[in-house]
């Protein structure tokens, strides 16, 4: 027997809806078997997982809290991916954005919120953009592989933040923990009362809308798409490829920087070591699963947020974290497989 994939020439609406649903059901089924074999009550685990993510207003708000940085990081890398620039450095750019935002608070913490927050956001953008600029300029002028440089700069950024929170900015009242002092309330992002959902959700939606319009309806967006498909064609049409590479990396890094600012200002309320739960990396998966479509990125980020928060929910039930990770992996795996099924038909032919 042989399996072959044949490209589908038309994807119907039915398939577009049915395949993701079937993927998630299959993932649940596989997880079910796994849980049953490990001696856990599968139905109860799922119930708790679902409840953890969506079961109450609070739980939904927690899902959104996780979705915000994932969406922003996904949007950040998607800009670079449009031009086939593999910016793996969103994590580092996020840390630099958080660092800059924290720096603004350290220096101007007594300013009123209305000035302080925009200033933090601008600083976050600039710092992230600078961290994107380094691999961008290396790539544009000397053709240095941006995948490697942007990845390596992540470690630099994380260590840099570590240096400040362990050293100069260490809070004397933190009982030795590597934490910078808590921000004054003026530096907190406004939240929906009674939850941790902060205004970052609007920032993410706004960024998605702006990106959509810029990429589709501006000359520059058109240049980015053309350059992504063929640098030769872009050069032929007289586009400044080097300039666009640098610009794209600046914007990509800047959005990642805003993500970092939003995390410190909206969630941790201080600069600390582990601001990001790998958002910069997970954002890459989010962006690809959404096929770089800005609005789909928002949706996929929400799903990922649910997976994360639902996972926390079952841990209190005594299920080891490894199993939670496995369940998350199964959902991802089946979604990706479903993606292939959606684009192709499987033909089983019998070999004689």
């Amino acid at each position, binding site marked *: 027997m042989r399996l072959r994939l044949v*490209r589908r*020439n038309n994807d119907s609406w039915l398939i577009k809806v049915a395949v993701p649903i079937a993927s998630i059901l299959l993932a649940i089924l596989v997880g079910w078997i796994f849980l049953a074999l490990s001696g856990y009550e599968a139905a109860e685990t799922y119930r708790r997982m679902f409840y953890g993510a969506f079961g109450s207003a609070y739980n939904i708000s927690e899902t959104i809290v996780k979705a915000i940085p994932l969406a922003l990081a996904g949007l950040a890398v998607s800009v670079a991916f449009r031009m086939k620039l593999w910016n793996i450095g969103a994590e580092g750019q996020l840390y630099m954005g958080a660092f800059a935002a924290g720096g603004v608070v350290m220096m101007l913490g007594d300013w009123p919120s209305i000035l302080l927050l925009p200033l933090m956001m601008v600083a976050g953008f600039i710092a992230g953009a600078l961290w994107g600029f380094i691999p961008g300029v290396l790539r544009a002028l000397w053709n240095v592989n941006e995948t490697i440089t942007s990845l390596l700069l992540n470690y630099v950024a994380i260590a840099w933040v570590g240096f400040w929170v362990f050293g100069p900015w260490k809070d004397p009242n933190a009982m030795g923990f590597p934490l910078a002092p808590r921000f004054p309330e003026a530096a907190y992002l406004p939240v929906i009362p009674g939850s941790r959902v902060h205004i970052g959700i609007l920032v993410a939606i706004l960024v998605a809308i702006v990106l959509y*319009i810029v990429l589709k*309806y*501006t*000359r520059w967006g*058109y240049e980015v*798409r*053309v350059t992504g*498909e*063929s640098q*030769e*064609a872009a*050069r*032929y*049409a*007289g586009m400044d490829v080097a300039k666009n590479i640098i610009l794209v990396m600046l914007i990509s890094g800047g959005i990642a920087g805003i993500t970092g600012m939003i995390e410190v200002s909206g969630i941790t309320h201080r600069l600390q070591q582990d601001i990001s739960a790998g958002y910069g990396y997970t954002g890459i998966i989010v962006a690809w699963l959404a096929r770089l479509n800005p609005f789909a990125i928002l949706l996929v980020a929400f799903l990922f947020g649910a997976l994360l928060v639902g996972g926390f929910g079952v841990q209190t039930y005594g299920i080891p974290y490894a199993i939670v990770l496995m369940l998350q992996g199964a959902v991802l795996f089946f979604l990706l497989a479903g993606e292939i099924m959606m684009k192709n038909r499987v033909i089983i032919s019998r*070999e004689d």
Partner: protein
Amino acid sequence: MKRMPIIEMVGINKSFPGVRANKNINFRVYPGEIHALLGENGAGKSTLMSILAGLYRPDSGTIKVKGSPVRLRSPRLALQAGIGMIYQHFRLVNNLTVAENVMLGSPGRIRTRGDLIEKRVRELSEKYGMAVNPHARISHLSLGEQQRVEILKMLYRGCDTLIMDEPTTVLTPQEVKDLFNTMRLMADRGKAVVLITHKLNEVMEIADYVTVLRRGEVVGSDHIENLDENALTHMMVARDVIFQELNRATQSGSTVLEIKDLTVPSDRGHAAVRKANLELHQGEIMAIAGVAGNGQRELVEAMAGLRPIRAGSIRMQGKEISHLSARERTAMGLTLIPEDRMGMGLVPNTSVVENAMLRNYQFPEYRRGGLLNYAKLEAYTHSLIDRYQVVVADIHHPVNYLSGGNLQKLLLGRELDLNPKVLIAAYPVRGLDVAAAQAVNEIMLEERSKGTAILLVLEDLDDIFRLADRVAVMYDGEIKAVLDVSETDIDSIGALMLGAQRVGV
């Protein structure tokens, strides 16, 4: 005389999404035969032969090799059945030697006696008149020599049916002669050769038997003695393409473009163009003749501003332009139809609209409130495809769906809408079928009568005589001569193209 066909394909059908590439095709090849498979681009030749080579599977139909039915599920199985195919793009490992390439993938143990293979390669190359050094690295060989290695590979594996997909495209005239000689030697020894082509003269010269495909169907097959060029053309295109003599009244005016002592580096840094001098006049077509890879690409890219120059000057209407960017040169009225239609001239995986707007997206009249005005760009695209007769199902479909002829018309139309004063086109009809090539040539001649100065890089000598007023022959980076077409002949241009170098090894 009733002989057993070595290959017999009966009732072959093959569909791809949206196309029936092969419809109920019957195809027979006999041992000792050079069988030409003729047809326009997209007629289904390559599909049919890829089925025979085990690359595709037919939707229905049977294949017999030497009388017994076979199922060719993979190229390996096809090879075992004695069928080998040589593609236009060679499947060779560049940093291995000839002998190593021949050995690669051959059945047998992991450890192989190198000297035995070399001996066998030598024997085969002598037997079939192919001069190749078994120790040479592929990267040091010319395309003609690489093709010989491909043939040797197939012979070494014991092929007795050899399919060659447009083998002469990359060859010099002398190499074509050598190849035909080899093909004849193979046929004389009872092997069968299938030649996929759309060049009539080759068919008349070498083939014993011809099968003509049109739109996936066999529209005729006969011994070559019973056919002539007109009959074949008629079968191929089902309409009489008139090989009319085109109007070539000389009317060239003032000098528009002047190149002096131009030296251009190649990608590897050596001088690909050396001290070239050229003058291009208003309303003339100047052809650049030369075997591909003698600096033509670098020359036109340097002229268009896509490649830095090392020395010399490029003046357009008396103004030095060698320091200007590509876009500035385009704005001055110099435009290039590049050799890489898809990838440079056109953007793959984007829609027809997005390709049509590649030049005018920057113009203010296609903007509204700072954003691109897609309604207007779409209207422009419609007018463009109307005027240049580009056949497009939907302007929002990716350009990848378009045939070569339609791609070229789209590209040409877009560039000509800029009203260029200088039009440079590299291999404008390469890979196009007869009708599309004719349409492109007509567009060129029309531009010329409008007074545009046109520089064409051409490979087909017939086209040079059909189109050009003057011809500049390039060899090894130098422009060897600039001749009036009416005062020269094919042989002298051919001789200049080959320089003093002996072809082959």
